[in-house]
């Protein structure tokens, strides 16, 4: 080994971010289960203001999306950008700052939600001091990420990096514009926009936070890890190019489908509906690309629980991105809007796609990072079935609840009178809410199992040191240091 010039990938930070991500998924999912229980036993907040439904619902969504989701995306972005650029992270200290500052924001931000500091805008509830902190950390994330790409030693910028890049750039734009406000006190501000205009700006943000974070960001994960896990190059490079740009262009238009039949202009709603239908094509293009990539490695599906998770996540991704455009059609949205159908749609994406692809990636990545086999493959296989059963039950129960709510609310008898009171319909939902609670508990049990499994895998292990492999002459871009003697890090080229 040529000790002095040895350059290694910064993977310790990847491990740390995965640990934080696991911490947040446990906390925020426990809150989700608790919320589900409040639908059945509304008294279980015990008269404590900080346990009240209205305050902890945003804790669930923010904890999951920004705690679990973003930590996982940062971890996998840092891991894959080094591999696809053949160079260690740019400004590793800044990367560590992002890692810890982000966790601090989620922790304090979560507490501030319990204290009742909220802008009320969905997925942007955190108040202005946090918004500023988020913007700063996000820019640093961008500097590390794009700095690494600029330093890369291999000429093409790989597909996964476009998606992670889209995540960083578009979320920055949305976050800043949507959160513009005049501060009053440290925990209170007033939006720069009012009423209908505020609604349009908020759902431009809200839908695209879903689009570029929960969809695009996780597609970045898919584009890097799926080829790795299945040992195959991505099926069609051309399809990934087309789908990336079509996705980036068309997602932005679809936000007002959250405002169908509301007091915003008709043309805005119609445009959003059409663009939501268009969106089906680039969304499915990525799914097809993913499925075709694994299709050459089906045998592995029998033995590798990590790959099972990822393939199942693609199926749910396909489901959610098919259902979404359908719900964006005005005549369907009339029924689905404001009901538990939306909640079913959300969680088919959230549990089936976001959680499952992340779980699959963690099962693959953690053993690699610490250089030890997964503690228990059996446990991981059991987790797979729990996750699948939990997701199915959650989604089915909420579909049933949502469709009934939607139709019953709208139903009118032969005299033009409402057929059912709101209270009757509410009371009829209780068994669906019971099923949803059971579904949540099953899914949560699987998640605990995974956390234990990964914890036992990591325990007492050091992060494996990996050196960037040399780059073939024809792809070389920035000068590499002289090739190290051992290439333990060499993997299947992306």
């Amino acid at each position, binding site marked *: 080994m040529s000790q002095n010039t040895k350059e290694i990938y910064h993977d310790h930070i990847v491990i740390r971010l995965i640990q934080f991500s696991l911490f947040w998924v446990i906390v925020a999912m426990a809150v989700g289960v608790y919320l589900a229980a*409040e*639908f059945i036993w*509304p008294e279980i907040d015990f*008269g404590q*203001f900080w346990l*009240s*439904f*209205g*305050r902890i*619902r945003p804790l669930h969504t923010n904890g999951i999306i920004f705690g679990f989701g973003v930590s996982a995306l940062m971890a996998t972005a840092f891991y894959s950008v080094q591999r696809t650029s053949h160079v260690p992270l740019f400004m590793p200290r800044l990367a560590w700052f992002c890692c810890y500052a982000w966790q601090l924001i989620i922790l304090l931000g979560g507490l501030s939600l319990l204290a*009742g500091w*909220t*802008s*009320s*805008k*969905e997925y942007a509830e955190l108040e202005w001091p946090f918004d500023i902190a988020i913007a700063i950390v996000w820019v640093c994330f961008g500097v590390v990420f*794009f700095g690494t*790409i*600029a330093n890369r030693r291999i*000429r093409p*910028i790989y597909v996964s990096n476009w998606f992670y*890049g889209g995540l960083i750039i578009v979320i920055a*734009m949305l976050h800043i*514009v949507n959160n513009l406000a*005049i501060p*009053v*006190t440290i925990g*209170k501000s*007033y*939006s*720069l926009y*009012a*009423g*209908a*205009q505020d*609604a*349009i700006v*908020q759902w431009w943000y809200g839908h695209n936070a879903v689009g*570029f974070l929960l969809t695009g960001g996780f597609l970045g994960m898919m584009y890097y890890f799926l080829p790795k896990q299945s040992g195959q190059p991505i099926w069609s490079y051309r399809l990934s*190019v*087309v789908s990336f740009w079509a996705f*980036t262009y*068309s*997602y*932005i238009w679809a936000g*007002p489908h959250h*405002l169908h039949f*509301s*007091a*915003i*202009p008709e043309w*805005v709603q119609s445009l*959003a509906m059409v663009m939501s239908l268009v969106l089906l094509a680039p969304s499915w293009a990525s799914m097809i690309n993913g499925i075709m990539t694994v299709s050459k490695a089906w045998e592995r599906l029998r033995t590798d629980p990590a790959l099972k998770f990822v393939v199942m996540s693609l199926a749910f991704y396909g489901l959610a991105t098919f259902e979404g455009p359908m719900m964006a059609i005005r005549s369907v949205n*009339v029924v689905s*809007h*404001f009901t538990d159908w939306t909640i079913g749609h959300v969680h088919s994406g959230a549990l089936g796609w976001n959680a499952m692809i992340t779980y699959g990636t963690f099962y693959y990545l953690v053993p690699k990072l610490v250089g030890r086999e997964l503690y228990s493959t059996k446990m991981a296989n059991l987790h797979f079935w729990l996750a699948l059963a939990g997701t199915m039950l959650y989604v089915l129960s909420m579909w049933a609840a949502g469709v009934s709510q939607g139709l019953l609310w709208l139903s*009118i008898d032969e005299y033009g*009178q*409402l057929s059912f009171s*709101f209270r009757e319909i509410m009371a009829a939902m209780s068994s669906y809410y019971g099923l949803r609670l059971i579904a949540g508990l099953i899914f949560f049990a699987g998640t605990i199992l995974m956390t234990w499994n990964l914890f036992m895998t990591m325990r007492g292990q050091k992060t494996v040191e990996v050196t960037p492999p040399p780059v073939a002459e024809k792809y070389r871009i920035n000068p590499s240091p002289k090739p190290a003697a051992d290439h333990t890090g060499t993997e299947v080229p992306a």
Partner: protein
Amino acid sequence: MNGIKLHKKLEENTGLLIFGILFVSAIGGLVQVIPSLYDESLSTPTANTRVYDAVELTGRDIYIREGCHVCHSQQIRPLVAEVERYGPYSRAGEFAYDRPFLWGSKRTGPDLHRVGGKYTDIWHEVHLLNPRAVVPESIMPAYPWLFERNASQAGNIKKKMQALKRLGHPYTDDEIANAAAALDGLLEIDALVRYLQMLGTGYDESMNDMEGM
């Protein structure tokens, strides 16, 4: 083929890639969101819509703090059943002084846009203290702490009104000066109920027609 060539450039140049993503993702917003911000039909208050007074504004901010909007919408759609259930459908101008908007995305409870005047103050108080005392099967949480805190402790009302004035809400200097006094002796629950009772009162006769439904 040309598209792929163009893409070769983008995918080999970090700066171009960043710019490309920013540009492509900004188009939709520029065409769809920015014009809406200049659309006066969205920002002009209806004839009966007025700014929230000190007590109502305090109540509204309590509504936000407690997250009532996660279960209640304030947006009645122009559908026969919905108008039958909740009242005349919502018009953009009625929300001209709503910062932030509180339309919501989920109806675990009923729409509240026209709840003002539907029940007595006492009904609301009993309901908010324990919803199941009024509606046995209710799954709405209870809010006992609202009965213990003074409305004047729920934020700095003077600063709030000054901030809103800067954003164009027509508060007079007198109103702002007397704001704190208006909250004297009121509990948080009183402010919240005052807010609930004024919801949907931007309504006027012309809204009875079902045009646009």
